[in-house]
């Protein structure tokens, strides 16, 4: 039993990483209706910017806020420059655009900051949390930040004018335009917010996985999986999905014999597919009713 609780706790700790990333994935999915394959690379780039600012002597929270601002503006600029002109192109062309963005950001980061791994500081320290060896204060802080973000997003989307306008623009662009919502800028705003949330995820993940241009590869796969399991239309689902995927991955590694680190990923993904076959819209997603 103790082994079980320990593994679940460890799973929650890694799950927080996935939950953070999944939140950013859902955010952009709400704004543009696509999965952004370059999301992880954008987060990685933002984290490098934060690291660079700290190297220049900016204190942690100063760098944190500057990075948020940088990512927000960066997200909007990417949307305006790259994806607005493609608005009418087929969906698959968009996906190709994401892949291009991925290649560019990865390569530029690699050239600017090279591929050696770097330490990234944590604002919460790394001592054991409440005397438990399994969760450090950093991981507890990460879970806390994820939950606060979730709450803020919930309030934003439910109670603010801009949040409501964004939802309207995403679900019914035509009608939204007719009531005077600038849908094109709502999409840009969605990109900005997704990039900012991604940068928070990146800065929280970096102390755990270390900073380097390919740090997001594995995390993004799990982030996608978490978002899809939870249901792409639900931020709450994304966070729950993140924790579930983290816990499940740990339990599989512990209890099923012959499953080393190598097979963790395929098995986690197999489970996700099973979930999808049973519930095609994810655990918390709303089914889309189609009008014929």
């Amino acid at each position, binding site marked *: 039993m103790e082994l079980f609780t320990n593994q679940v706790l460890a799973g929650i700790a890694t799950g927080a990483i996935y939950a953070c990333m999944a939140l950013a994935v859902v955010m952009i999915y709400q704004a543009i209706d696509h999965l952004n394959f370059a999301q992880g690379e954008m987060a990685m780039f933002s984290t490098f910017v934060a690291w660079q600012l700290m190297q220049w002597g900016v204190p942690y929270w100063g760098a944190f806020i500057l990075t948020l601002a940088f990512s927000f503006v960066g997200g909007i600029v990417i949307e305006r420059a790259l994806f607005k002109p493609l608005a009418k192109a087929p969906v698959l062309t968009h996906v190709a655009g994401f892949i291009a963005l991925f290649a560019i950001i990865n390569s530029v980061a690699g050239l600017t900051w090279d591929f050696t791994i770097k330490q990234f500081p944590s604002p919460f320290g790394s001592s054991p949390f409440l005397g438990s060896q399994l969760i450090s204060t950093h991981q507890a802080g990460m879970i806390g930040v994820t939950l606060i973000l979730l709450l803020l997003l919930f309030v934003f989307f439910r109670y603010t004018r801009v949040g409501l306008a964004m939802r309207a623009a995403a679900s019914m662009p035509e009608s939204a335009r007719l009531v005077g919502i600038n849908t094109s800028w709502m999409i840009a705003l969605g990109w900005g917010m997704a990039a900012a949330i991604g940068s928070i995820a990146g800065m929280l993940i970096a102390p755990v996985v270390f900073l380097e241009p390919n740090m997001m590869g594995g995390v993004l796969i799990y982030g996608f999986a978490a978002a899809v399991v939870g249901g792409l239309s639900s931020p709450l689902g994304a966070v729950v999905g993140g924790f579930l995927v983290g816990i499940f991955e740990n339990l599989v590694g512990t209890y099923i014999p012959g499953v080393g680190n190598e097979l963790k990923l395929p098995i986690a993904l197999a489970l996700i597919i099973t979930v999808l076959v049973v519930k095609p819209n994810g655990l918390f997603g*709303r089914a889309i009713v189609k009008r014929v």
Partner: protein
Amino acid sequence: MSTVQDVTAAPVIDAVPKKAMSLGPLASLIILALLVVTPLFVKNFIIFQMTMWLIYAIAVLALNILTGASGQFSLGQSAFYALGAYTSAILMEHGDINYALTLPVAGVICFVAGFLFGLPALRLSGVYLALATFALATAMPQLLKLGVFEHWTGGVQGLVVTKPDAPEILATLGLKVSQDMWLYYFTLAVSILIYILSVNLLKSRSGRAMMAIRDNEIAASAMGVDVSLYKTLAFGVSAGITGIAGGLGAIAVQFVAPDGYTIQLAVALFLGMVVGGVGWLPGSLAGAAFIVFVPNIAESVSKGLSGAVFGVILILIIFLLPHGSRQLAYGAQRLIGKFRKN
């Protein structure tokens, strides 16, 4: 997210009429002539690259049948490519079977695998299908490394495949054909065969059924099309062709190893399809050229920034030609049409 959406609002891809899926006879003959003659004048290394180009073209064509014709999306093609490659390699090395005979076996095995994978995939569409196929692609290299199969697959090290010689009958006829050149013409013959079969498939009743599903699933089923059957069939056919491409790839590269078939290969095939033009079979050649040659070009422009150069070229292509090389071909056709009128 809206709770009510019109079915016709956003199909996965634009509807492509079946006439527009292939080239006219004259253009086909010109391209064929170029493909036959060029290797006679270039070095062995370039012949090898052209072989790889044709092999990727087959794989892109397979994806094109799945996405362009039946409207399903796959990021898992590398898994079927790997399966085909390993089938050929194992049959050649452990079973001493002639390389040409391993290809149909690879095709059949991949067809079955694809058909079976298509069954659970029936319940998924769009992003969800993309994630499921993506999972398949990431799982494949790990499965190939498993200790259980190591006797057959060679584990992490992979297998070395012997390169086939040109048949002796050519030498007795006084023709000197190098291994590379023989393999090229062999691949070309297979490619032509697959291309003709694919074009005919799409022109047949089955092809029309797939396209009907792509354009409007509900209307198709109302017309009596067995939606599940044709969707899984499309998966099977696509996987089977990809498997043949994989088998050819193993013979050409003379080597199979798990890390040669990662998700990057699936992404490359996907890019090839988009650049070539979704739903336009001859575009597979252009798309495959993009996969094989553009990374080399990017590398030669700047070593450190090759990824960025590749991305910029890709963005330029999708900005200028959002519908891929098909758009270019249509433009040319219109120009020629005008020219004829004058």
